[in-house]
Structures are given as structure tokens and as C-alpha cells.
């Protein structure tokens, strides 16, 4: 079974995944969506960490530490950030964090990732404006989205026909140009939300 969800709040995500477990659906892979397979209902625990790694050696060392202490790695790669673990040792720990600062720190790492992503789009956006691939003034003056020469001097049916004909193209043009700025704002919002979770968790 596949499900699509999006979480910033790790605690909510963990709660949902553990509820799925109780219903007999265990997470087997997370990429664009969550892939589950049917199991006998049980109450093992799934926990989420957020980390990226510079090389395979560091990633292996990280996984070995978790494996040694009773956590099976379910999903995640060197660069994926979110790392999903399942508790396999009944005598082991019930959480992957034993203090509040480390529990909060995963939100800080998540926030930094979104912030870096948002900022890294900025030079691309500027470059597209400078090379005139994106006409930024069109957002203030939508008439510039229309390319038909002399369109705005025309009147009557002659105008409306040309105007309506070009409108779908103008909307698409605007949509494509808006894509990057909208994405940047969205990523920035995710970064702020993760930062809020970081602060909230840290004072608890």
C-alpha cells in the first residue's frame, strides 16, 4: 500500500507511522510516498532521525551504532535526511534520543536544510531575471505577459479575439515565471516551521 503525506513535525509523523503499525501496516520504504506492507499487528516502535552524511564511511558508522543498540534501519539514504528506524531489541531503549537538546536538534538540521535549499534557488532566479528569461516587471504589469505586437492599441472584436487567443499562453508564461519564487517562499516557510518546532521542543 502506498500513501502520500508531508510532515515537518517528526513527532506527528512518528505517531502516524506507529498507528499504522498497530493496524498491521509496517513502513518498508519512504521516498516520494510511504510504502507499507501488511504484517501481523504489533507494537514495535518507529522513530525518525534527520541527518545527511558526507560519505559512506560516516553513514555506515551511524547505522552500525543504531544496529548495535537495537534499532533496525528501515528507510533512508546518505542524502535523504530523514532516517527511519524500527525497534528490534525488546530489552533496548524505547527512544533514539535520551535528552531534550538532541531530540530538538533534528529540527534544527531540518530547518537548515530547507533554508539552504531556498537560498540556493536565489542565484538561479537572479540569473534568469538578468538574462531576461524571466520578465520580473510583468508581475506588476500583467500586460507584459502578452507578446502580440500592438495588442493593446486594438479595439472591439479585433482586440478580444487576439486577447483571448493569447491568454492561455500568457497565463502559462506567468505560471512558469512564478514557479521559482513560489518554491522559494514555500521552502522558507518550511524552514521557519521547523525552526519553531526546534524552539518548542528545546524548552520542553
Amino acid at each position, binding site marked *: 500500500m502506498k500513501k502520500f503525506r508531508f510532515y515537518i513535525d517528526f513527532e506527528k509523523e512518528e505517531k502516524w507511522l506507529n498507528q499504522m503499525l498497530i493496524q498491521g501496516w509496517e513502513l518498508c520504504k519512504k521516498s516520494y510516498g510511504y510504502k507499507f506492507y501488511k504484517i501481523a499487528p504489533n507494537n514495535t516502535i518507529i522513530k525518525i532521525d534527520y541527518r545527511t552524511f558526507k560519505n559512506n564511511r560516516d553513514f555506515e558508522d551511524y547505522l*552500525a*551504532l*543504531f544496529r548495535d543498540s537495537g534499532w533496525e534501519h528501515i528507510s533512508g539514504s546518505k542524502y535523504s535526511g530523514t532516517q527511519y528506524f524500527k525497534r528490534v531489541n525488546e530489552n533496548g531503549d524505547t527512544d533514539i534520543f535520551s535528552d531534550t537538546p*538532541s*531530540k530538538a536538534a533534528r529540527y534544527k538540521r531540518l530547518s537548515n536544510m530547507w533554508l539552504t535549499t531556498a537560498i540556493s534557488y536565489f542565484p538561479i532566479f537572479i540569473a534568469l531575471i538578468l538574462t531576461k528569461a524571466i520578465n520580473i516587471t510583468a508581475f506588476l504589469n500583467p500586460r507584459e505577459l502578452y507578446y502580440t505586437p500592438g495588442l493593446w492599441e486594438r479595439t472591439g472584436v479585433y482586440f478580444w479575439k487576439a486577447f483571448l487567443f493569447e491568454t492561455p499562453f500568457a497565463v502559462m508564461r506567468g505560471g512558469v515565471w512564478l514557479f521559482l519564487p513560489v518554491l522559494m517562499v514555500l521552502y522558507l516557510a518550511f524552514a521557519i516551521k521547523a525552526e519553531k518546532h526546534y524552539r518548542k521542543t528545546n524548552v520542553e
Partner: protein
Amino acid sequence: MKRDKNLPLTETVYYILLALLQPAHGYLIMQKVEELSNGEVRMAAGTLYGAIENLLKLRFIQPVQSDDSRRKIYVISDEGKKVLHHDFERMKYMIEVTKNVLRQE
């Protein structure tokens, strides 16, 4: 004398440094810390990994060559030994002064 800004060490950091006077990999550190603290300090995997990363950044510990292809092995550095010693002296003084005050009561 200007005091080291890393002092006082947290209980977990102190025990990790103490454990790493002998080279050890992650899980071994976890076990040693529990043993040294008489079962009082139990660190979970995610917390320990973050602590190791932080101590590496501070250069209090360093990785050493290991035969284990998966587990990295760490050991305390000279800088780490110095800070551990300073914290030890700090606590020794606290104990002495407390004893003296209590005796006078």
C-alpha cells in the same frame, strides 16, 4: 586565571571523555558510560551520535585507524584530556569546600 569556557562539562560529555581514555566505537562508548556511571547515565543512539559529532568538532576526541570496516573508533585527544582534567579539578574543589562547610555546621 581565566576559566575554560567549556567548563563545566555536562555529565554525559564527562563520562564519554572518561570512557575514551581507551579507544572505543560508538556502542562500546554507550556501554562504558553506563558502566562508569553505575547505570545512571544511559545514552540512546541518536543522542550519542550527536554528542560524538560535537566532540569531534571541538577536537576533544579524534578518530583512530580501525580494522572494523563499519564502526569508527574514537579516542580522547590531548585537548580533551586537558579539559577533562580541568573539570575533575573543579569538582574536586567543590567536594573539598562542601566537606569543610558541612564539618563546621
